[in-house]
């Protein structure tokens, strides 16, 4: 039966969850035993899992693959989304590169600005958590019910969709950025330290942006239009995370705010790391801030999640 099914569906057969033939059990031999209750089938490792945030790698990986399967059906939509997200940084790239002209502003030359914004386009795409926007709808329209019935914390759905999404967006963004780099000639001096430091800075930036958005999105358990706060977060990121201008170029109060608030650590900081704008002290302070804000975001997420589900199970979905 499975082989037939596989044959019929050639279109996206390569995306299908691969499954080796030896997993197939020949025929249905004893029908009564096939459908016997599973208590005897449960392995001890299953019953050992009990808390709500268990890691379920099999489930998580399956969700990632599911998201890919769904998205290949709509790839042009996601490419359009990715294109839309590139536009504001591109505009500011041209504004600053033009303003710099032959001179430099705040230490950045024309080529420096091009490099900064091209890296920012990549970092912005990699850290943008579009799944946060759907959490509220899931809660409002009762989708949370089926997620809560599964032996897998719903945050895994969002996380898996994130991981899957990054891959799809990168298929579009990396070639486009590469072409832009060929045309616009960025000035980027990569050092080993900067490159090595960039990787954890990027990972932390993504985690921070994801959990920060997620806890805000969980406010949908209480308020119907909690996603207004996500729009506010996007606005603050635009202003304070190095999009409208590198944070070093922001006027006094805004610059201080950008260093204190979490938003710079979601986008701007990893860009500054890779483009070599930071000295050792700046790097360390940045990482410390990233870790501290991530801890706050995860704590807020955990609190909101528990309180939210408690409320949800009190009022009904």
């Amino acid at each position, binding site marked *: 039966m499975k082989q037939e099914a596989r044959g019929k569906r050639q279109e996206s057969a390569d995306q299908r*969850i691969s499954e080796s033939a030896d997993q197939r059990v020949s025929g249905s031999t004893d029908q009564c035993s096939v459908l016997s209750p599973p208590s005897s089938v449960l392995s001890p490792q*299953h019953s050992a899992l009990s808390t709500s945030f268990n890691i379920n790698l*099999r489930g998580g990986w399956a969700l990632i693959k599911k998201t890919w399967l769904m998205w290949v*059906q709509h790839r042009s939509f996601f490419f359009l989304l990715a294109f839309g997200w590139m536009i504001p940084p591109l505009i500011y790239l041209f504004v600053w590169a033009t303003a710099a002209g032959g001179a430099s502003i705040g230490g950045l030359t024309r080529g420096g600005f091009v490099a900064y914004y091209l890296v920012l386009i990549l970092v912005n795409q990699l850290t943008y958590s579009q799944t946060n926007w759907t959490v509220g709808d899931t809660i409002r329209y009762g989708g949370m019910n089926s997620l809560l019935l599964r032996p897998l914390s719903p945050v895994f759905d969002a996380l898996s969709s994130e991981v899957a999404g990054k891959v799809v967006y990168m298929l579009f963004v990396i070639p486009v950025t590469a072409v832009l780099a060929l045309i616009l000639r960025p000035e980027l001096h990569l050092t080993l330290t900067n490159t090595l430091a960039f990787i954890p800075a990027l990972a932390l930036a993504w985690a921070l942006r994801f959990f920060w958005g997620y806890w805000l999105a969980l406010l949908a358990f209480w308020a119907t239009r909690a996603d207004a706060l996500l729009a506010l977060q996007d606005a603050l990121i635009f202003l304070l995370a190095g999009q409208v201008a590198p944070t070093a170029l922001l006027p006094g109060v805004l610059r201080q705010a950008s260093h204190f608030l979490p938003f710079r650590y979601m986008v701007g900081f990893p860009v500054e790391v890779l483009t070599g704008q930071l000295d050792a002290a700046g790097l360390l302070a940045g990482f410390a801030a990233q870790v501290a804000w991530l801890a706050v975001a995860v704590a807020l997420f955990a609190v909101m999640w528990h309180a939210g589900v408690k409320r949800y199970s009190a009022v*009904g979905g």
Partner: protein
Amino acid sequence: MIESHIVVQNLSKTYRVPEREPGLGAALKSLVRRRFTDVDAVREISFTVAPGEFVGFIGPNGAGKTTTLKILAGLLHPTGGEARVMGFAPWERRHDYLRRISMVLGNKSQMLWDIPPLDSFRVLGEIYQVPPAQFQQTLDELIELLEMQELLTKPVRNFSLGERMKCELVAGLLHRPDVLFLDEPTLGLDVSMQARLRRFLAEYNRRSGVTVILTSHYMADVVALCPRVILIHHGQLLYDGALQGLAEKLAPFKLIRLTLRNGHTEEEILRAAQNDGENAEVMEQENGQVTLRVSRAATPAITARLLNTLPVVDLSVEDPPIEAVIDQIYQEGKVEA
């Protein structure tokens, strides 16, 4: 004695519902001070269900059926009383509990619309960490029972309601739950699809020994599947026992259908039937066939008299249709003794 799979004791659920008068003024006022009313969705109901039982949960809309099911599935926290399913407090939603139950909602879908069901099934198999061999065996079995081989590779969005429901059932049973909560699984389906799903559910219950609680507004579902029914109304348990018993308890009357050789007026028939204040009522009269409603106790005497005094061609004694019985309870809100 076999231990009960589901134990519910004095279970209560009260919702706090915000309320306000219509109009802008009231809307503004409610911004400052919100008023709440308490709605008792479930009031102190108690019952137990043994492993492998197929129980029908019936009651009018808003009776508290779905609320009770949601409490048992772990989606709602009760405001009072106790519930244990296989020893678990459902609302703790421990993963080893969730792995052993399943809830299929007739009006909600857990299938992914854009991809063929086979892909959704595999994701669920992984989430529930079903061993691959067992997964394939269960899937083959369910697909054969539901006769849905041809559906596996088409996107779910192109499915009819009945086809989607088949998928929901497969999705809900892939991990071989011990307890299955079915909330109106036949909602909106045509009669033959309803019948097919009923056959499937009966067969699956027989083969697997799964414990099932089913809610449905289609009495045919309940009659076909549930040897035992629990009736709730306004959140209270009104009846718990065999469906047949409900009809007898509730409807202390029977229907006598008569076909007479030549036409008789209503009065003539009633005169023949009634005696000593025994009550009979003509329910219907058309084409020479008459339906009488008579008290259960007086049925034998009245039947005998009718046969003696009227030129009867055909006579049958029947229980009232279950729909009529249920309707009467829903209207009156109580089960008469």
